[in-house]
C-alpha cells in the first residue's frame, strides 16, 4: 500500500493552468486576481516563465498598511519560494505542507520552469480518491460549471492589412476561435470578438496598416489594436454615437455610422483610446470575472 501511495506523483495531482501575476503588475491587480479566484497566494512569474516569488494575502495586507496598492508586485512579493518538483511523490508534498505553513507550492520541472501549482487540498483530494474514501455529499447541489476554465495565459498577435477589405475581420475571427478553444465562456468570446472586429474595421476605414495583440488570461483579455493612421483629433467627439469621418465607400459597405468606438466601449469592461506617434492605439479590456 505504501509503495502505491509513493507512486502517486505531484504531476498527477497538480493544477496545470497556473494563475500568476507579472512582477511589474500592481499589488491592486494581484489583490483583484486573488479575490476573484479565492486564492490566498499566487506565483509571480515573468514573461520568460521564470518564478520570481509568491505574493500572498500577508504581503497584500502589508501593502494595504502602507497605503501602497499601486506599488509593484515585485516590491511586496515574498522572494524566497519553496517549490516542489513535478516528479516528487505526494508523500513528499504532505511532508512539505506539514513543515511549512504555506497553503500551496509552485510545481517546477527539472529545468526549473513553473509547470503547475499544488495545494494541500489537491493532495488530500487525490489521496481520498486513491484510497476510495471520497464520497459525494448527500442532498447537496453539485457545483456549477466554472464560467471560465483555467488555462495558461497566452499572447495572440495579428497583423492587420487594412487595404485588403475582404480579409478584415480575420484577426477577430482567429481570436474568437482561440478564446472558444481555451474554454472562455460564450458571452466573453462574443464580446471580445465584437470589440476586436469593430477595432479591425476602424483600422480598415482610417489607416493603412495595424496590428492586433491580445493578452489572454482566465482573468482578463486585453486586446490592443495599434494602427499607422492619422489618429483622432478629438477623442471625446469620436466616442459619441453617430460621429464619423469615414469615407463614403465604407458607408456603402454598411460601416462608418459612428458606432464603432461606442460599441467597443459597450462590449468591453474598459477602453482606453490614445494617439501615438504613429497613429491610434485602442486598449480594450474584458474581464470574465466581472460577470461571474
Amino acid at each position, binding site marked *: 500500500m505504501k509503495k502505491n501511495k509513493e507512486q502517486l506523483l505531484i504531476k498527477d495531482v497538480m493544477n496545470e493552468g497556473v494563475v500568476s501575476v507579472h512582477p511589474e503588475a500592481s499589488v491592486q491587480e494581484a489583490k483583484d486576481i486573488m479575490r476573484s479566484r479565492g486564492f490566498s497566494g499566487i506565483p509571480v512569474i515573468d514573461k520568460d516563465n521564470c518564478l520570481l516569488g509568491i505574493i500572498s494575502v500577508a504581503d497584500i495586507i502589508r501593502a494595504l498598511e502602507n497605503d501602497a496598492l499601486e506599488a509593484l508586485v515585485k516590491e511586496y512579493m515574498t522572494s524566497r519560494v519553496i517549490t516542489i518538483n513535478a516528479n516528487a511523490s505526494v508523500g513528499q508534498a504532505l511532508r512539505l505542507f506539514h513543515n511549512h505553513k504555506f497553503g500551496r507550492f509552485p510545481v517546477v520541472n527539472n529545468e526549473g520552469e513553473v509547470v503547475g501549482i499544488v495545494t494541500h487540498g489537491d493532495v488530500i483530494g487525490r489521496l481520498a480518491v486513491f484510497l476510495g474514501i471520497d464520497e459525494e455529499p448527500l442532498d447537496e447541489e453539485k457545483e456549477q460549471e466554472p464560467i471560465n476554465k483555467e488555462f495558461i495565459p497566452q499572447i495572440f498577435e495579428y497583423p492587420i492589412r487594412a487595404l485588403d*477589405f*475582404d480579409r*478584415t*475581420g480575420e484577426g*477577430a*475571427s482567429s481570436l*474568437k476561435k482561440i478564446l472558444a478553444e481555451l474554454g472562455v465562456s*460564450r458571452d466573453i468570446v*462574443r464580446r471580445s*470578438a*465584437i470589440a476586436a*472586429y*469593430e477595432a479591425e*474595421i476602424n483600422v480598415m476605414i482610417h489607416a493603412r496598416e495595424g496590428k492586433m495583440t491580445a493578452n489572454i488570461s482566465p482573468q482578463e483579455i486585453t486586446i490592443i489594436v495599434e494602427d499607422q493612421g492619422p489618429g483622432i483629433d478629438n477623442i471625446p467627439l469620436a466616442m459619441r454615437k453617430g460621429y464619423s469621418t469615414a469615407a463614403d465607400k465604407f458607408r456603402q*459597405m*454598411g*460601416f*462608418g*455610422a*459612428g*458606432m*464603432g468606438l*461606442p*460599441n467597443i466601449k*459597450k462590449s468591453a469592461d474598459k477602453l482606453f483610446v490614445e494617439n501615438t506617434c504613429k497613429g491610434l492605439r485602442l486598449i480594450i479590456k474584458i474581464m470574465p470575472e466581472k460577470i461571474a
Partner: protein
Amino acid sequence: MQVKRKLSEIKELLQATSYTEHNLEEIYTETVCGADLLSDVLAFTKEKTLLLSGLIHPQVIRTAEMLDLAGVVFVRGKIPSQEMIDLAKTKNIPILSTAYPMFESCGLLYKLGLGGNFLEEK
C-alpha cells in the same frame, strides 16, 4: 408569444435558395433583424438572430460570425459570390438568397410569428 422557427421553414416561406450545406432542419431562430447598416447590427443584435440584408459582401458574413447569428438571408434576389459562399462555409454561417425585397421578407417572417430584438427586450 415568440416562436422558434427552423431555417428550413423560413427558406420555404421566402422561396429562398441555400448556398451552404447546413441542415436547415436543425437550425432555429426566434428573432430577425433586417438591416443594411452593419454598424447597427454589430451594436444591437443578439445571438441566434437571422439577419436579412441587401448588402452583399464578405463583411456581412464576418458580422454574422462575430455575433453568432443563426444565418443571413440576402434579399431582393442578390446572389452571393463564390468567395462569399466559401467564407460562409469556413465560418459555419448558413446563407440564403430570396427574391423578396426587404420589406416583404420582414413582413412574411413577422406574420410567421418571429420577432425582433427590440420588442423582445421591452
